[in-house]
């Protein structure tokens, strides 16, 4: 294309701004308002104009960076960030877009400058993996250390001064999703089966737990293993017909199965209570020895009496927190161990090439079924925990979006990476909590985050895979014939 970089950039940016205008006008510019029982339209042209300006500026800046004018763009971008921080915008969202967009542009400009400086040097270092990839690989290599620190922090959390009710609540939710992510990781990350209906097993666990506890009067510690068994059985029952399918077909059938379970829960009113769900699910007790209540009924012991403490609602929350922490860690240890066993290796081999697996005498159905049953068991345990924590369950909690979120956690984390699941949960569940102040726009911020992750780390945050068994020590090159190691 002809013209100076500015003219080209301006033309491109004008087009982007036009697209933004077309999209923003109906989506942001018009808003239906209920006035005197009639719907009328409100126009918000200031917002539309701001969006168009912001898109134009952002696109223009990105183009200039691409044309090699990063040094010029950087101060402008920083100015926008600082200015945006203090300036008043029509809505809070525009402020986020301005500041965030400015940050992205600034980051791109810095990257471009650094890259330019590096390639200008006479001996350019080999391209190699990008900064993010190297960071992720290093992070994973030190995974033992990170793991120990993380677990220690998790155990210490309730004792820390800032651990109030809300922090504990969020932490417990995060751990529930981490556990679900670890469970689904077996099916999706290791065995490579795209399961879009994982929430079905979560629901089976929750309802099995609730029904066992309510109708048979079983306590938490009796109902939990039975609910886990129910999960495993449902996994095997679903697995038999479904596991013959491959790829997309498999995904669609699991999606359907997830919905079938939800519809059954919704319509089988005599057993599941239908849309009104099941309430008054028993809370967990302290290993059958004490209850978390202020005034225990006759014959019961209360937790605070047992330990001679003042009654505090937090006791139960802390107990729940530790409960899910231990359950999740058990799931993690079992999965890590399985990965190094023949079964786990067969899962990964199946993900890589199932025809080759057959040619090596591996029974695909059995291996897949094992993955399905184990993941379903973990899902059901998480479901039981959910039921006892909430004290109330209804089909609404087990909609498709839950499956999608858990899947997003696994995929974002980097398929098969256990640490990746933790990081991704912090992003996927944590970010919307952090952005709670943005109210209805927080999902936009969330979506933006997702897009950025997929741009920078398309195979997940921590996609580096460590072999399950090594011949040579990790990191260092093989001891013998290091000279030949350069022949690559």
């Amino acid at each position, binding site marked *: 294309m002809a013209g100076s970089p500015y003219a080209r950039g301006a033309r491109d940016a004008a087009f982007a701004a036009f697209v933004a205008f077309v999209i923003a006008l109906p989506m942001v510019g018009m808003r239906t308002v209920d006035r005197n029982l009639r719907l009328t339209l409100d126009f918000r042209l200031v917002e539309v104009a701001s969006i168009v300006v912001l898109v134009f500026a952002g696109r223009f800046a990105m183009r200039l960076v691409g044309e090699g004018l990063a040094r010029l763009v950087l101060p402008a971008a920083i100015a926008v960030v600082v200015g945006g921080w203090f300036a008043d915008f029509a809505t809070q969202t525009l402020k986020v877009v301005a500041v965030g967009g400015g940050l992205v542009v600034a980051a791109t400009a810095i990257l471009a400058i650094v890259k330019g400086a590096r390639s200008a040097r006479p001996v350019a270092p080999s391209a190699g993996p990008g900064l993010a990839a190297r960071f992720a690989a290093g992070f994973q290599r030190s995974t033992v250390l990170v793991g120990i620190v993380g677990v220690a922090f998790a155990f210490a959390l309730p004792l820390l001064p800032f651990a109030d009710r809300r922090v504990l609540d969020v932490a417990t939710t995060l751990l529930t999703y981490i556990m679900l992510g670890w469970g689904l990781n077996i099916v999706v990350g290791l065995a490579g089966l795209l399961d879009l209906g994982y929430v079905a097993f979560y629901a089976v666990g929750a309802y099995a737990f609730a029904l066992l506890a309510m109708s048979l009067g079983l306590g938490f510690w009796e109902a939990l293993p039975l609910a886990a068994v129910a999960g495993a059985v449902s996994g095997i029952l679903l697995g038999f017909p479904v596991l013959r399918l491959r790829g997309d077909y498999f995904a669609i059938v699991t999606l359907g199965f997830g919905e079938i379970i939800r519809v059954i829960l919704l319509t089988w009113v005599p057993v599941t209570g239908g849309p009104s769900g099941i309430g008054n699910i028993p809370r967990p007790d302290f290993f059958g020895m004490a209850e978390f209540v202020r005034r225990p009924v006759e014959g019961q012991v209360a937790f605070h009496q047992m330990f001679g403490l003042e009654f505090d609602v937090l006791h139960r929350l802390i107990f729940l927190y530790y409960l899910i922490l231990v359950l999740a860690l058990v799931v993690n240890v079992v999965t890590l161990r399985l990965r190094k*066993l023949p079964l786990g290796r*067969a899962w990964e081999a199946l993900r*890589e090439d199932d025809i080759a697996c057959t040619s090596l005498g591996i029974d695909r159905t059995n291996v897949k079924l094992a993955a399905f049953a184990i993941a379903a068991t973990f899902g059901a345990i998480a479901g039981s925990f959910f039921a006892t924590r909430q004290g109330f369950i209804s089909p609404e909690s087990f909609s498709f979006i839950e499956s999608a979120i858990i899947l997003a956690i696994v995929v974002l984390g980097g398929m098969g990476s256990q640490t990746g699941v933790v990081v991704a949960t912090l992003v996927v569940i944590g970010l919307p909590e952090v952005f709670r102040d943005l109210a209805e726009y927080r999902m936009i911020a969330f979506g933006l985050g997702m897009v950025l992750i997929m741009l920078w780390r398309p195979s997940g945050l921590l996609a580096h895979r460590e072999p399950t068994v090594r011949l040579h020590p990790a990191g260092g090159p093989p001891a013998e014939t290091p000279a030949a190691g350069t022949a690559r």
Partner: protein
Amino acid sequence: MSGGARTPLLTVEHLSMRFGGLVAVDDVGFTAYDREITAVIGPNGAGKTTLFNCLTGFYKPTAGRLALARGGGTFLLERMPAHLIARRAGVARTFQNIRLFAGMSVLENLIVAQHNRLQAASGWSIKGMFGLPSYRAAEREALEKAKAWLERIRLTRRADEPAGDLPYGDQRRLEIARAMCTDPVLLCLDEPAAGLNPRESSELAELLQDIRDSARIGVLLIEHDMSVVMRISDHVVVLDYGRKIADGPPDAVRDDPAVIKAYLGEDDEDELPPEVAADLGVGTAEGRP
């Protein structure tokens, strides 16, 4: 040739495979002997790979019998599912387009190949979960076997790298080693020398002879590289349009007119319609097929 009495290992009788109207393999029968390399050759589309797929259970043959002798018993391969053919009957194979577990390390590829024995030793993962000594011993043994094969295919140094990162020739050798780690009695190789340079195919030929002589198993080989076929085969079967057109020792097959015709086409004169040929006075020496 491996003197002494030849023991039949695989007997193929009247094998046919149809896909709708297309007859890919048509009434083929031959015998592959233990401790011999049997080469299956033929022009493109002759039905060689289809034959392999029937043999290893990936296709169910339309008709015919595939009998494999192992340990005094006979396995009828046409009745067995693919994974049992590999596991019970001991037929291992490689693929024309390499099928390694690309994301897993070289060493892991060789360990996955020993899945069934390890899985049994791990007591469906329960013994393995607690690392019981019986499982650990089995795992050590599997590792030793993998190491021995890595030495043999000279990949020890790259054992921990993803298999997909290896150069092409190394991938070919690794796939053969992986197949061998299943302890087969019959190794089926689908064009192992495809895409190799002359030095690499010469090394491959040595490896295959070594496997035949030291592992004392039968090898069934599909190959286009005639230098490899003629050098190492004990026995050659030639297919063309799904039919067997020749069967015998390499030297005999090389001089077989039917084989030459299949590969090089018929003489130019034969392409002429008979009446034209008669007019020109160039009669067809051999009878038309």
